[in-house]
């Protein structure tokens, strides 16, 4: 029973502990990484253990895994710290780097490193490293130069890192000049790579755009020297540090050596006339610079000291000494002097209660000068007193370690008093002012990671041709469609009108043809033709369907069109008489036949005239 309770308790503790672990693991990360996961035997690679996030002061007891079992440690551990401020939030990281080489071929694991952080033990991930058999030529740029890459340039071409001092205080800058010494012709091959600094904050002083030679005698020989770069290093931790080598790849022109074995032949061709040159690629490296960084003395260390080193002056000012409540006043602290201005933190200002204050607006102006940085940094605090009365802002203190005098210096500003009058009530209610004060407490939103379109200016506007094309296209289509529609209508749907217009002509033609039949004595054809002329005319001019053509409907239609009754009767009589004549058994006389022709013709003409009068 007792034992079970014990187990339960243990489990609970473990659970809570692991829960807590995962809670802060979101902020603090301890990871391992390699710069390449596959190398050939004999090639170097780097393993880095990084602790990121959180406060770096709280870790202890970093333990690297046993690397020497499978690998050969060439260098390390070198530690580096970095601090980043992203939108006002500071994050820092520390890393330990080892340079390793494989001992044999195969796949090896790099076991986890451990670290204590706030009482918890953190472990990194394990890594796998594949080491393959060295293949000659792999990893080298192709070309003829690779055969000669082991060329010994001796002291004809080298690069030096020249520090101005090797023993400094924490925070005291070291100027390192990288200089190339040369007695042969060369050409820079790739851009210069500065080493990743470990334990230093670096600041470029000078990077010449063009290399300018100067003459210098070094170790008894005369060289052309080129200043490659000048860098300021501010140590950020005490102890024995090293400034890593600086690398630069160059092309050198060297004489190609012939080895034929034939002595006489060689001597003949060793004449400069037959010399051939070729470009050889070579990587130059400076040595490591060991630096001793002394911690700052403990004696007389001021209470408010935050690690500032250099020499500074402080200027504190308040832009007004009397104002109304809810108005704004600005307190400005300017630090001016020499030292690592970029890392200057905001001074500690104690604000009295009853005054709202906001994060300062920071202005920085720093440039390298005289082996350190010179410039100023200003912090402007906006103050909004909320109540009337008289408040005083206590003195602002700022301490630093003076490098020249080797002692601590503290600047103290005078104290300020603010006379606050009764606030303007209307003004206070003014929502613009109120909103703006709300915004004072906020920071800007973070930057956007995507670059957006990055278009050329005005290219968002569609081109004129396109707009015109888009606008004209439908109108061209519309006009085209109208023309086509007109033609189609003419061809298909206006047959009625066409027939109407042609009705008289057709009737006349038929009548005249019937006359010819009469001359020839073809009575049947004569009657048929007259009937066709009359019926055809009636049908076409009145647009009657064939099925509806009767005498009655013809008369109705005519009268519906507003034709006078007598005209309609005339046409009806003509139709009646022609029908009668066609089908009557008795033969009509010659006069009667001719009279029928005249009747039909007259009926058509009068009907036509009447219809035309109506439509016009």
């Amino acid at each position, binding site marked *: 029973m007792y034992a079970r309770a014990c187990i339960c308790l243990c489990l609970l503790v473990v659970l809570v502990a692991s829960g807590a672990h995962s809670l802060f693991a979101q902020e603090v990360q301890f990871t391992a990484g390699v710069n390449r996961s596959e190398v050939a035997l004999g090639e170097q690679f780097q393993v880095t253990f990084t602790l990121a996030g959180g406060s770096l002061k709280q870790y202890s007891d970093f333990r690297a895994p046993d690397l020497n079992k499978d690998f050969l440690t060439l260098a390390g551990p070198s530690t580096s710290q970095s601090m980043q401020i992203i939108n006002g939030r500071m994050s820092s990281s520390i890393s330990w780097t080892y340079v390793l080489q494989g001992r044999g071929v195969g796949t090896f694991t790099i076991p986890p490193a451990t670290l204590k952080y706030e009482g918890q033990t953190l472990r990194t991930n394990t890594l796998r490293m594949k080491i393959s058999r060295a293949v000659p030529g792999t990893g080298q740029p192709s070309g003829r130069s690779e055969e000669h890459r082991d060329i010994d340039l001796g002291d004809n071409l080298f690069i030096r890192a020249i520090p101005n001092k090797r023993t400094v205080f924490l925070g005291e800058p070291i100027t390192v000049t990288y200089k190339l010494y040369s007695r042969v012709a060369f050409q820079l091959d790739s851009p210069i790579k500065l080493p990743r600094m470990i334990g230093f904050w670096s600041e470029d002083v000078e990077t010449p755009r063009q290399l300018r030679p100067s003459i210098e005698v070094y170790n008894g020989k005369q060289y052309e020297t080129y200043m490659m770069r000048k860098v300021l290093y501010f140590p950020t931790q005490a102890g024995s540090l090293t400034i890593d080598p600086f690398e630069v790849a160059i092309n050198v022109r060297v004489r190609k050596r012939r080895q034929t074995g034939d002595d006489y032949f060689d001597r003949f061709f060793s004449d400069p006339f037959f010399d051939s040159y070729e470009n050889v690629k070579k990587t130059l490296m400076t040595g490591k610079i060991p630096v001793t960084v002394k911690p700052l003395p403990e004696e007389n260390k001021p209470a408010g000291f935050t690690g500032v080193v250099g020499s500074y002056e402080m200027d504190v000012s308040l832009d007004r000494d009397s104002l109304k409540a809810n108005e704004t006043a600005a307190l400005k602290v300017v630090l001016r002097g020499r030292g690592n201005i970029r890392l200057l933190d905001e001074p500690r200002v104690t604000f009295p209660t009853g005054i709202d204050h906001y994060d300062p607006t*920071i202005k920085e102006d720093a440039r390298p000068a005289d082996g350190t940085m010179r410039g100023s940094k200003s912090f402007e605090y906006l103050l909004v007193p909320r109540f009337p009365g008289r408040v005083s802002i206590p003195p602002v203190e700022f301490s630093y370690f003076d490098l020249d005098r080797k002692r601590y210096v503290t600047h103290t500003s005078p104290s300020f008093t603010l006379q606050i009058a009764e606030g303007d009530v209307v003004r206070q209610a003014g929502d613009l002012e109120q909103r703006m004060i709300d915004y004072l407490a906020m920071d*800007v939103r973070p930057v956007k990671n995507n670059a957006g379109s990055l278009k050329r200016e005005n290219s968002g506007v569609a081109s004129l041709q396109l707009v015109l094309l888009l606008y004209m296209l439908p109108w061209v289509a519309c006009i085209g469609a109208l023309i086509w529609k007109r033609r189609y209508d003419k061809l298909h749907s206006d047959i009625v009108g066409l027939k109407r217009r042609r009705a008289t002509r057709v009737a006349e033609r038929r009548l005249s043809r019937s006359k010819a039949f009469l001359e020839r004595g073809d009575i049947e054809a004569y009657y048929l033709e007259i009937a066709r002329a009359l019926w055809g005319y009636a049908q076409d001019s009145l647009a009657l369907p064939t099925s509806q053509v009767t005498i009655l409907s013809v008369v109705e239609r005519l009268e519906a069109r507003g034709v006078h009754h007598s005209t309609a009767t005339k046409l009806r009589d003509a139709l009646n008489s022609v029908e009668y004549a066609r089908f009557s058994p008795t033969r009509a006389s010659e006069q009667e036949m001719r009279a029928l022709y005249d009747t039909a013709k007259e009926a058509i003409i009068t009907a036509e005239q009447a219809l035309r009068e109506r439509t016009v």
Partner: protein
Amino acid sequence: MNRRVWSFTLLCFLSIIPRVDAGDLRERYDEALGKYREARYLEAITLFESICSEGHTSFELYYNLGNAYYKNGDLGKGILNFERALRLEPRNPDAMHNLNVVRARTRDRVEPMPLIFFVRWWNDLKQSYKPTVFLIWSTVLFWCLAIAVFVFFGFKARITRRLALLSGIVFAVAFTISFLLYQFRITDLNEHRFAVVMESEVPVLSAPDESAIESFVIHEGLTVEVLDSDGTLMNIRLADGKSGWVPASAVERI
């Protein structure tokens, strides 16, 4: 003949495809972002400005540049770049927020004049879409109008014609509105009618004359409307309607 028509059409379409620049731009942009994260704002500004000076623009570029200027303590330039970002995307909430954050730290408080409701509607509508959207709208409506005209003239039936006439009028009105929206938006984009005060304190003169009396004073970061400019002096108007003349060098156009 036919081939010429085709190549013209092709050219028209090709001219709207933006040219693709080398990855170098993107690289510099990312480097600038890195510098910003390391709190090296001055270097970030230099890199962003180098992209700007080559004529490349994007909302994000101006936005980030505004952030960098603000962090570096340059309020005027910060406001200028947020305003520029808002010129490209007028209703972006992030840029509006940041603009207000920076404005809160400037000295001038100008209450804008209230606008009549339909002016406000018009402005809201104008700013709610990209210009291309208006262009597409107006084009489609124009086509519809053409169809209505075709139906009106091409068909005889009374009801069809009446319908075509009615819808034609609707299309014509809608087309006019969307076309005007497009034109005004383009004008807003290209005209640079507003400017931001760059100097910490600028006296505003009552007349374009060195001896004119000083009517009021404006400070860094204030956005003003430019009414007229003769090279050395600029006639400006504040959001509350006050106007006057300031040296052209004291302000920078958005």
